[in-house]
């Protein structure tokens, strides 16, 4: 069938990846700098979403008297909201990020796989900022840092991966039809309700057993909360099921994105 090849003698394999690495860094720094350029609050916007969400969720959680298992309500909600915001903004922003770079994609031979990674890195930047605020808050509430925090790198990785998989899946479909792009916000609201962010995972376990075991976000969000607030290790069984489901999603979404994104310039 069709092929486009560029055999540039000056570019061996190493330089090829190196040039993509440089491009990745340039695009991430472009997005981080450009995003807040015409704003009053500037980089504060990196942490505002997570903080606002925490305020709202704490209010809701207090309103319906959610059982926080003895933890301060603010810590209980904040610890879940920060990773949730990371996951959600990654998933939502990837399709927009791909579409938003349409002008670039239409004119420059840029690898299409790079844009979801760019979005992931910028949302990760936001996550790190919010995470610092979270840690400071936990200290103020005198919640200790324990050895359970060693689970955090894995949890953060799984959050990013899940958001990335959902993001490229939606982006791939968006190249074909725009429905998911419009429905994304609503989808994420439903997902939020089915995830123990406002309430505790125990209530989901006793109420909606199926969702509890099939929603890959449950193990991750609950894991963050256990580690950060209660100093306990996460529920490993839940994490494994989350990992399996995420990888299954990856196996579908990535090839789909790879194939469909070639036609990106044809249909956008």
């Amino acid at each position: 069938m069709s092929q486009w090849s560029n055999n540039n003698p000056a570019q061996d394999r190493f330089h090829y990846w190196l040039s993509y690495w440089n491009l990745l860094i340039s695009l991430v720094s472009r997005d981080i700098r450009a995003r807040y350029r015409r704003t009053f609050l500037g980089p504060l916007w990196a942490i505002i979403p997570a903080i606002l969400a925490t305020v709202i969720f704490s209010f809701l959680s207090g309103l319906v008297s959610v059982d926080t298992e003895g933890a301060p309500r603010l810590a209980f909600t904040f610890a879940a909201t920060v990773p949730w915001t990371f996951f959600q903004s990654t998933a939502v922003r990837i399709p927009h990020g791909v579409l938003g770079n349409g002008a670039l994609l239409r004119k420059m031979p840029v690898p299409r796989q790079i844009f979801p990674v760019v979005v992931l890195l910028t949302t990760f930047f936001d996550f790190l900022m919010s995470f610092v605020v979270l840690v400071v808050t936990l200290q103020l509430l005198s919640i200790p840092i324990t050895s359970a925090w060693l689970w955090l790198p894995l949890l953060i990785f799984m959050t990013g991966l899940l958001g990335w998989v959902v993001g490229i899946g939606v982006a791939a479909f968006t190249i074909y039809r725009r429905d998911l792009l419009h429905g994304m916000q609503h989808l994420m609201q439903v997902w939020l309700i089915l995830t123990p962010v406002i309430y505790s995972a125990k209530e989901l376990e006793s109420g909606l057993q199926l969702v509890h075991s099939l929603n890959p976000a449950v193990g991750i969000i609950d894991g963050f909360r256990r580690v950060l607030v209660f100093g306990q290790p996460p529920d490993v069984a839940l994490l494994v099921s989350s990992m399996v489901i995420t990888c299954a999603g990856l196996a579908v979404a990535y090839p789909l994105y790879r194939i469909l994104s070639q036609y990106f310039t044809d249909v956008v």
Partner: protein
Amino acid sequence: MNQDANQTVSDTDFAIAVTDVWKRYGLPLRPYLRRQFDRLRGHDVSDRSAYGPWALREVSFEVKKGESLGIVGKNGAGKSTLLKLIAGVSPATFGQVHVNGRLFPMIELAAGMHSDLSGRENIKLLGAIMGFTPRQMEEKIPVVEDFAELGEWLDKPVWQYSSGMQARLGFSVAVNVDADILLIDEVLSVGDVNFQKKCLNRMDELSNSGVTIIFVTHNPYAIERLCERAIYVREGRIAASGTPADILSAYFLKSMDKSTVITGTDVLSADQREGTGAFRVTGITMHDVLSGDEITAFSTGDSVDFRIALNVKEPVKAYGFSLRIVDPANTIVSYVMVPMSSRSALALERDSVLQCRIENINLLPGQYWIDVMARELVGPVIDSVSYAYSFNIHGNLQVIEQMGTRGIVYLPASWKLLEDGKAGAVS
């Protein structure tokens, strides 16, 4: 994956090889299913054309390293699609595109710029897209900035730029980042004359230093000046390929609307023409100066008589009359007008034939058109016919030897070698 293909082609010295490329926009699934369905029903599915619409079909060509190729064609003919395929931003439906070297596509202006970032930041970004490391870009940035002549604007965000300034920035990057292959799509039309000149000069330089240039434009003289070869794309196919001069005349002949060419007696029936109609041009013929025989063609350097038949409705004492000679590229190559001194001798009372003798028409071989215009000395147009007459000029050996087919006019020239030291200031 393409290892074998790369091996075989890297031996040759081509920069771009396009082999039997077909392009259909949109996702390929539906046409594929339609074709499979037809196959199941026992239809003949060997004809690809039925599974279109095709933006490009059966396109094959090669561009050698260091060659500069012009692409002409009407809007929608497939020029930009072709560039996108070469640039690798859009996949070919069938066929292969091989690119050999570092490529910089300038498809539309402001290629790949981010409007919230400053000009300088955008230069770095474009460099990164081109695959340069930040350190490599450090060396190039001053050159690019110099070339762009944007001054303090470089620190302002690109959304504040005019389209001309965006083009300046994009173009400055394109011609200063050591690309092996430049794709340039109709970007020279923006920007002021000086910058255009600078760009053309720079592209000449690049072309001479071995950079391959693919150039899409509607400006025929830019192609003639810059390109060694041209292709004419029509309805998604390569309609012709050859020297720029040949291709441009093929293009303009095709794109000229035939119905506007009124020759001989056609003029009689044209009542809808503009003008007061005090008299009307009813026909034009061309005659040999010596014999007076009617001719339709002559050779470069010959003299001819144009006889313009006029149907006079009311006497006109003095009027302005002009013939405009137009070449296939729609450029006015010459203009002949009745001089003030002869006006009184040409007063019209009844139907007459006006003769205009033009001596030594030193135009290059090719087809030309004549526009006729008559007007009152002060005031309105009497009659005006565009493409009223068409004639051919044949080349003679002398002309071809002297200048090939380049340029517009033939200037008879002779050459000789002077003794040493007599050439004056030329050293």
